[in-house]
């Protein structure tokens, strides 16, 4: 379990996160939504030890985040960002191999190479393994990165949960890719030792796939719980300042504006 207890993050006089508490369970699709500037990305940055919290505590299982070294943390926690550009020409497989960096010292072991192949097969990017990463399309790049972060936490560690944090990984992808990604994520999240926490923009994706939703507004928790509890008219209107139209088609709920 990834647990946030009363965390606050302040930059200058601006509170980016204000007394936020949440628990993210393994085997569930935990999604964070909220308007721009509501603190979604800040929350992921704090939870991944990229920025420090001013108050409160973050725990991975029972251990405080502060007590992990970057290297220790990297072995059990991977982060996928919106998009990643590389500064020098690298082949796609070299980018995926970086996911194994926390696990070897100088040269990748046999197991690292096998995991890279498996992760690339899983995201169907093996055919572009030898291509220059910079020449790939946006969707291909993001699949390569997905393979990379997955390779990073590929193996279960006995008695230890693994954590996958996603910071708006779907923003630059078309609808087809967005749904492909979410289906892959659902498959992954079935594993009961994997904690998945993702930020998404699209409320319909959240309505369709989430088991648990955290709705942030102005750095505070506006609502949290199951989609049916969070994605209700007045909460959405309060957060996004626009009146939603709630639609039902078959067994699924949709939100339009």
């Amino acid at each position, binding site marked *: 379990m990834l647990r946030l207890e009363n965390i606050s993050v302040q930059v200058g006089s601006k509170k980016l996160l204000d007394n936020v508490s949440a628990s993210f369970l393994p085997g569930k699709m935990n999604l964070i939504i909220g308007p721009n500037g509501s603190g979604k990305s800040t929350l992921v940055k704090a939870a991944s030890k990229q920025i420090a919290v001013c108050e409160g505590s973050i725990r991975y299982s029972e251990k405080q985040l502060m007590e992990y070294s*970057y*290297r220790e943390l990297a072995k059990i926690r991977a*982060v996928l*960002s919106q998009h990643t550009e590389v*500064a020098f020409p*690298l082949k796609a497989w*070299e980018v995926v191999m*970086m996911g194994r960096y926390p696990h070897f010292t100088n040269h990748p072991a046999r197991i690292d190479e096998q995991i890279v192949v498996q992760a690339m097969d899983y995201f169907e990017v093996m055919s572009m393994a030898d291509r220059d990463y910079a020449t790939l399309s946006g969707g291909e790049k993001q699949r390569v990165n997905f393979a990379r972060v997955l390779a990073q936490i590929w193996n279960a560690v006995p008695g230890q949960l693994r954590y996958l944090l996603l910071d708006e990984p779907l923003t630059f992808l078309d609808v087809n890719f967005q749904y492909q990604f979410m289906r892959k994520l659902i498959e992954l999240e079935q594993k009961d030792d994997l904690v998945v926490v993702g930020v998404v923009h699209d409320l319909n994706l959240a309505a369709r796939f989430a088991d648990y939703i955290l709705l942030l507004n102005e750095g505070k928790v506006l609502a949290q719980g199951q989609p049916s509890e969070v994605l209700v008219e007045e909460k959405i209107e309060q957060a996004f300042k626009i009146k939603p139209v709630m639609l039902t088609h078959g067994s699924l709920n949709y939100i339009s504006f």
Partner: protein
Amino acid sequence: MLSRNYSASYFYLAIILVVVFFLSLIFGAIVIRADEIMSAFSDFFSGREMPLQERIFFDIRLPRAINCILVGASLAMAGVLMQALFRNPIVEPGLVGTSSGAALGASLYFVLGATLKFNAGVWTLPIAASAGGACATVLVFLLSHRREASQSIISLLLTGIAVNALCLSGVGLMSYLARDPQARSITFWNLGTLSGSSWNSVILIGASTLICFFISLRLTKALNALAMGEAEALHLGVNINRLKVMVITVTVVLVAVATAFVGVISFVGLIVPHFLRLMKGSDNRFLLIGSALLGGIILSLADLTARLWLAPAELPIGIVTSVVGVPVFIFLLRRNQHYF
């Protein structure tokens, strides 16, 4: 498929390095034949009196040839490290003030050290040069820092120009005040020369090159991860702040120790990594080992050219490296226009 084999590249580079090393032992203002080199060594080991030719070989030619390799390796490795740190292939120690800062530190030491009667031990010159190089580099770093990564490279290069100009005019002033004949030569500082190579300098540059090489080798994986940005590297377990301090320290020592003895030699740190990237991609481990070898080759060739072009007169080596380096620099600038 998921690996690159670099051993063939290392092998060929090493062979070329050995060949170039022997060429630079043989050719110069006078030609020293292979059999003379052999007899010089046998005289040396048996402790016999050496004739003039052999003395030239031992006291001048050999330390110079070794220094070419060491200085070339130092500057090229420093280029690789800086480019990885700034995430940009157009950065090198001559452009961001490290070299000229080191030259200022060394020339201050020559002039003021004599006046203030420092106890001039063998380590004090490299320390003075390192202090100068570190000050200039940190100054450029702080002045050019921008929140937007895309702006930072242009501002880095411009700040580098300003700090270079400042340091080199300081060097000019020191040369004007200097009594020491070596320090007095402004061309020495601005354009570099290996003609003053002594065994003392070989030992100091050799120590710094070797130590820094092995330290940097341990940083290559973290530097690879940095190619994807600071946040991604951090997520992969890299302690970014510690890495920055390590890389800057190692770079400054590499460049400063070399510069203290041979002056400012620009563009080696730019050309060498560029050619290696064309050969075998961007793995920093390969680039580091490769540039230790290719850096030595390129600088030895440049020094041979400097010695032979107008023989018996000698060109400053910086002219030769600039003739090759400036076109490469302009090419890289044009190709990387999206950074501006």
